[in-house]
């Protein structure tokens, strides 16, 4: 059933010999050891599993890995590391935007997709970009502030 193929994650090529029907999320977490993308529902409803696929924020929990040959996947680990935080991660820390934190990987990824296509978003733009991501702790006000702050930082870096 399985046929070796190549998956590009965070800029690295991985050769995989697993069934093409395996969900991308399981591949990331269990085959590549990238634990940042999270299982929340497996139903494409909560957003905890979101990753960038060619720059778009997409669910990974039900996405068959076989559909991703030649595509570029970016996970939260691809944004930054504790030693070298992405401006989004830095802004989330500065705003203390997160309580339990389980939703944050997906939210950071959705925010990254937004800022890549719209460096100067309004609050309404951020709300629209994050509306597919659930947060149960109620960190929403801080998350909105953090994304707008990161956008401002990134604009300054470019300028």
């Amino acid at each position: 059933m399985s046929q070796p193929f190549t998956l590009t994650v965070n800029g690295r090529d991985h050769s995989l010999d697993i069934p093409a029907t395996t969900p991308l999320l399981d591949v990331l977490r269990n085959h590549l050891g990238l634990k940042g993308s999270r299982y929340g529902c497996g139903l494409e409803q909560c957003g905890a599993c979101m990753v960038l696929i060619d720059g778009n924020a997409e669910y990974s929990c039900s996405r068959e890995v076989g559909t991703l040959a030649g595509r570029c996947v970016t996970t939260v680990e691809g944004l930054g590391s504790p030693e070298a935080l992405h401006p989004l991660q830095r802004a989330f820390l500065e705003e203390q935007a997160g309580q339990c934190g389980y939703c944050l990987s997906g939210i950071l990824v959705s925010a990254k997709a937004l800022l890549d296509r719209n460096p100067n978003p309004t609050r309404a733009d951020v709300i629209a970009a994050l509306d597919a991501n659930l947060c149960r702790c109620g960190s929403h006000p801080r998350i909105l502030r953090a994304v707008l702050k990161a956008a401002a930082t990134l604009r300054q870096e470019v300028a």
Partner: protein
Amino acid sequence: MAGLSNSLKDNPRLDRWLKFCDDRTVRVGTGKVELGQGVLTALAQIAAEELDLRIDQISMMSGNTAEGPGEGYTASSWSIEHSGGAIRLVAAEVRELALKQAALRLNASPDELSVVEGVFLRNGTPTDFDYWAVAGDLDLAAEATGTVLPKSSNTYRLVGTSVPRLDLPAKLTGSGFIHDMVLPDMLHARTLRQPGRGATLAALDEAFVRRKAGADISIIRIDNFVAFVGADETAVRAAAVAAADCAVWSDARILHPEQATAKWVAAQPSHDRLIGAPVEEPAGAHGASLTFTRPFLSHGSIAPSCALAVYRDGALTVWSHAQGMHPLRDNIAKTLGLPPENVTCHHVQGGGCYGHNGADDAALDAALLARALPNQPIRLMWRREEEFGYEPLSSAMTVTVHAALDAGGRPRDWTTEIWSAAHGQRPGVGGAYLLAADAMKEQPPERKPFDIPLERGGGADRNGIPLYDIDAKRISYHLIHDVPVRTSSLRGLGATLNVFAIEALMDELAAREGEDPVSYRLSTLSDPRARRTLEKAAAMAGWSLRDAGGAGRGLGIGLARYKNSSAYAAVVAAVEVDEAVRVTDIWCAVDAGLVINPDGIVSQVEGNIVQAISWTLIEEVGFDPQGISTLDWQSYPVIRFSDIPEIHVELIEADQHEALGVGECAGGPTAAAIGNAVAHALGIRICDMPMTRERIMAAALNA
């Protein structure tokens, strides 16, 4: 000197709380665990403050049955009061012991010495001695005496500052959760849940299940507990889905949609008790009463429950994100028939739980499998459907508030009458047990009718006694035992509906007198801290400009002191009602006494407000014959980014008072403020939560 807290009485040895480590840090133990509420950061601040250390010189050891203190469950906003109080006393005492030892070694008087970042200073000059140099000479196996006075709050340098959360950096960069743990040769597991206590598995097409798994799996069956175990998580998940589709159960629980309603619950036989003032026949007919309901609610953690376990040489080790590792150890040991000393439980952080969800049950599931497969580490995770379908729910409730009034239209006699199933059924409490115990041949005895007594904060009756100056106040509690689902604690417990009801009736009574709701409350409220909190929230919201209402926009207020003993919160909500309710602004004032971490409190209060908006406007569990029918985020929607109002939280300066639990204080007042704002906007009172579009339309038609 205050007496020793229960936390310290139960764990008197100093070394359960503090240990000087070789890497020149101090390890602080606590039985309370991080649930995303920031408690470990706040407790580290308390320890660092008393020990004169930097925050990065503290490491927290939380929820560890082998070495740390047992402090029951992390619940009811007790952590800062209980664990914080114990850590403060222990740290003060250990600092004193170390200082005396250093004085001996330096041939100095203890009065000459001080501590900065763990180094002893003699008359302000650093010495060669620090904590770690004298640690070996301290007897930390000794018991705490509680006789060393902690610092005075006016000398604090770290407590009262917004130290950033210790756990957040990991969580922002893709790690930090139990779900990410990997043990050598670990196998994944998923369960097939028994649909109700009496159900027995009549048939399972194992060939079908294995075919759907698509990779090698083991099917483990222990009486009516069934699980699928294997190296490939994708396969075991597929097996569990297939099994749920094809399993045939006899005597499965059958639920009916009407059983999910507060009305059905209130009509069941009850165990009745009266708390507070004896009933007097209120004179005359001058009184008022209103009835309110709310449905069953789910905790709705974004993270399904997860646990790891391994059983080696008769010893079981469990990793769990449940709210209390010591109770978990005892409950697992009891179910498995193991001596408690052979079971060790370690807390590892999971998703926010907001109360008693599936976390404890998942830990027993993992433990059962670990014992069935010795030497084999097991990682068990619940599916989304399992979390919604089998975690304990927060009970549907009905509350009727009755007030008899004096000649000035103020309540002089008050009864809060409550119909609810229990809100306090954590494992080990009131005969409650872990879920899979039901699946064992030797089932535990049925749970007893029990709820948390009011003197311990209360369950359904939490906050049933109003804060206002009323001659006679009482709660009439009808505890319903025979509901067909497990019920237990969700953040706020009964307080959410009780405060909603009390504050609604206060608004109605004010309207009868033609008085402003805030002025009316103040006229019958002598607690100065409650008054100040109410006045602050009203000022923040520009309450004095509030209009007559009725035009689709409303401003409402709610006030409570959580558990009548923790933090005070007053909330003003602004709403727009156009078929559906939209909350546009929330202003909240909080008096939490001594503040450990201001930003941490604001964050908790904001979260509590957001969750309460969701409960008040959106959430509702449903039943169908197969069981709980709201098994995903489409059937159980919660608030999203597009529904978040502007939220303004301010803390009242009250450092002269003791630190009060704050994590649940704003929920009831938020629900109440929204209810009152909707009544102000429409001129009609909606008495049933959630205040959905359908309810608003129905109320408008009936008006």
